């Protein structure tokens, strides 16, 4: 029997980046907010300190910071005709857990999407005609525009202190920045990080081919910074332990370093960790949430009543929360009807390795998660796709993040997979190879979706999430095209051997690609094709807001965090200035 607790104004499910920001804003506005976090409390000191945090076996191989998939797995299959099986080892993507969420182990690559991305369906139809795309592709407009989000992108970047170089301020192109970016209202809060040697080689080569290289925007900071919340960050030391690790230097922008000190000092906020939310509770009309039910670390069941519920968990867990709660109609790929779980998408990652002689020394270990140089000439809709048979693109960059000994050992094709020959090749190439990433977009497609698994259940007895996904033909074509362009840059750098590895199907969950899972609770203007409206409010249960990369109708060519931060502040603006003043539907269906 659940113990019923005293009602509060707001329950936030998941105290990661989104949850921390939302809770901070609403607590500061005077509302009583409870944050329910399934993982543990953790801070820079003592939990993130080295040498313990630089344990590659523990964090990289054994995924110490990730969702416990012995208790809460997901199942996966490529196609609807297959039987999905549980993912027992996180490999392809890495959902985090614990205070601060997945952002604790992010790389700090902080991009904005471009204006065209938010109106992708309209733009594609207008530029390439209505029959350009495979009929199974289900891309759609977001319901918000870049101009809507610009002030919120700005606010998020200044919260993080992002280090970068503007390419377009209010329509004026800035030398050294990205000329393709949509106009920003001002420059980044801090200048770019130092360029590593691979980045410098890339910049020279890409420039010689007429492209437009620029420094990657990084939330591993180039210099000390005090954000508008009054929280101070340090400069990054290029230790090479970002992605999959927590930062011990207060130099990577994560909730612990940018906002939690302010949130946790507010008496209107209460953090409860070790709390596994089972469902959002609805009243008998199924149109109003009454709160949530959760189980704490020792197994006690609680009902936490609340006037407003915000689910701000990792993308795929947001989908599952709605499915477990009966909010919104589940998607059915056979009919194309239903919305929850629809338009699940990913990121189409390809690589290029450029092998040099031993006189070119790159020191790959000297890196931050977001140092490097890239081009957007083949990203998004920055080039003409007429006749190419696909939409989307990828940024191409020398954005090497580390040279850690267990995981990083580039070798050319034909190298033995183990033994003496492999070891010799690793030694030969470790310090003389430049890796490019081709960070590609992902269209949503009718066959790709998430639902509740009919067989497997979590440690609390609830069905786990089932992911059905394979790379759409559109994205395989895109990867082949962009990777070929990246190979040309590798050759222009003067490499002895350039090896392009365009992403090919089938998608596999046993190989790391990226933790950029998107979609499943997508935003939009039409309740038939979206789960939440343009303010991220549930169409079906107006006192439930869903905030996450699960809101993206499809994924663009860049890392999703910057856009998620912008959407978070956009939704907060609607909550504070519209919803909480007069609770109800913000958009009529």
């Amino acid at each position, binding site marked *: 029997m659940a113990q019923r607790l005293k009602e509060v104004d707001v329950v936030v499910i998941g105290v990661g980046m989104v949850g921390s920001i939302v809770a901070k804003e609403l607590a500061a506005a005077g509302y009583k907010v409870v944050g329910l976090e399934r993982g543990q409390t953790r*801070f*820079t*000191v*003592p939990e993130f*300190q*080295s*040498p313990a945090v630089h344990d590659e076996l523990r964090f990289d191989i054994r995924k110490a910071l990730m969702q416990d998939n012995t208790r809460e797995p997901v199942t996966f299959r490529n196609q609807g005709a297959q039987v999905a099986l549980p993912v027992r080892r996180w490999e392809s993507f890495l959902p985090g857990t614990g205070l601060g969420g997945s952002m604790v182990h992010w790389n700090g690559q902080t991009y904005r999407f471009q204006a065209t991305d938010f109106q992708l369906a309209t733009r594609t139809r207008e530029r390439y005609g209505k029959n350009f795309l495979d009929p199974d592709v289900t891309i759609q407009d977001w319901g918000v525009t870049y101009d809507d989000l610009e002030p919120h992108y700005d606010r998020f970047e200044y919260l993080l202190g992002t280090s970068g170089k503007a390419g377009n301020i209010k329509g004026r192109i800035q030398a050294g920045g990205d000329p393709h970016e949509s106009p920003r209202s001002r420059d980044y809060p801090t200048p770019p990080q130092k360029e590593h040697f691979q980045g410098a080689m890339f910049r020279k080569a890409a420039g010689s081919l007429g492209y437009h290289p620029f420094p990657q925007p990084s939330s591993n900071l*180039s*210099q*000390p910074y005090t954000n508008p919340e009054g929280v*101070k960050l*340090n*400069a*990054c*030391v290029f230790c090479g332990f970002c992605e999959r690790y927590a930062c*011990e*230097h*207060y130099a990577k922008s994560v909730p612990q370093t940018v906002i939690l*000190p302010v949130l946790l000092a507010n008496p209107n906020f209460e953090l409860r960790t070790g709390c596994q939310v089972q469902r959002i509770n609805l009243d008998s009309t199924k149109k109003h949430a009454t709160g949530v039910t959760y189980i704490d670390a020792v197994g006690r069941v609680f009902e936490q009543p609340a006037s407003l519920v915000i689910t701000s968990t990792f993308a795929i867990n947001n989908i599952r929360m709605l499915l477990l709660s009966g909010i919104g109609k589940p998607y059915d790929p056979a009919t194309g009807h239903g919305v929850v779980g629809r338009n699940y998408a990913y990121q189409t990652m390809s690589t290029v390795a450029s092998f040099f002689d031993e006189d070119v020394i790159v020191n790959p270990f000297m890196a931050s998660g977001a140092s490097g140089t890239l081009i957007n000439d083949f990203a998004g809709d920055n080039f003409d796709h007429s006749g190419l048979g696909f939409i989307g693109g990828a940024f191409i960059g020398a954005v090497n993040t580390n040279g850690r000994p267990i995981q990083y050992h580039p070798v050319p094709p034909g190298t033995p997979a183990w033994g003496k020959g492999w070891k010799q090749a690793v030694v030969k190439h470790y310090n003389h190879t430049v890796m490019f990433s081709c960070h590609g977009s992902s269209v949503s497609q009718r066959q790709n979706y998430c639902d509740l698994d009919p067989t497997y259940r979590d440690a609390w007895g609830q069905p786990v999430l089932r992911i059905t996904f394979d790379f759409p033909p559109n994205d395989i074509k895109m990867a082949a095209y962009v990777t070929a362009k990246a190979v040309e840059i590798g050759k222009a750098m003067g490499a002895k051997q350039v090896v392009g590895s365009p992403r090919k199907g089938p998608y596999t969950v046993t190989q790391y690609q990226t933790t950029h899972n998107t979609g499943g609770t997508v935003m939009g203007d039409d309740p038939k094709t979206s789960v939440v409206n343009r303010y991220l409010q549930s169409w079906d249960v107006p006192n439930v807001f869903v905030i996450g990369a699960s809101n993206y109708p499809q994924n663009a060519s860049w890392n999703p965090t910057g856009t998620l931060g912008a959407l978070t502040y956009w939704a907060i603006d609607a909550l504070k200035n519209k919803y909480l003043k007069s609770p109800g539907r913000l958009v009529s269906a």
Partner: protein
Amino acid sequence: MNAPAPPFARFAFSFLLIAALPCALAASATPAAAATPAAKPAAATPAASAAAAAAAPPCEACHGAHGEGMAAAHVPRIAGQSADYLKKQLDDYAAGTRDNPIMANFAKALSQQQRAKFAARYAAMSARYIPQVKPPIAVHLARGHQLAFQGDEAKRVQACNACHGPDGVGVPHAAPYLAGQSAEFLASALKAFKDGTRKNDAGELMRSVAERLDDADIAAVTGYFASVDLSTH
């Protein structure tokens, strides 16, 4: 917020230098100018360069025959410190990004090759551990150990060892050792970072830390590192 640290450290240094210089530097360049902080730095005359390059380096007068330093005078131990680090400090003294009139005079008188040579010489030395005259009391040692190994979340200070290596043994090329270093020197270095007279730390990495430490923290952490005898590691 960041009141300048009292300049006692530099005065003590200068005073002892005056006392120590004549014996070791009898034939060396302009000791009077070097010992007077207010004096204009000596120009790198050919004579000065030649003297500095002589077999018995002027460093010994203060840093000791084995690079063991002179703790009470805030003169650091430099034996076994990484050559890259020592060379960078000489360059920074000469450039003025590390403010010390005495070291500036010496450094300016040296060519790049001479600086590299001295740096390599002391990097290759080893010197016995010198116990502190007044070892820190247990409670300060405990606080120092905490700052060294763990840091302090309330002050948003990370562990010293995160950059300076396990128990402050140093990370060649990147960060100097702190273990066995003179507490007096470490304290004056932290205060110099804090008040901005020393600003040769990339990304203000040391200033970011030093400005969050109060006098008690500085005494504790420097006392702790001075108590670490590397030869027992």
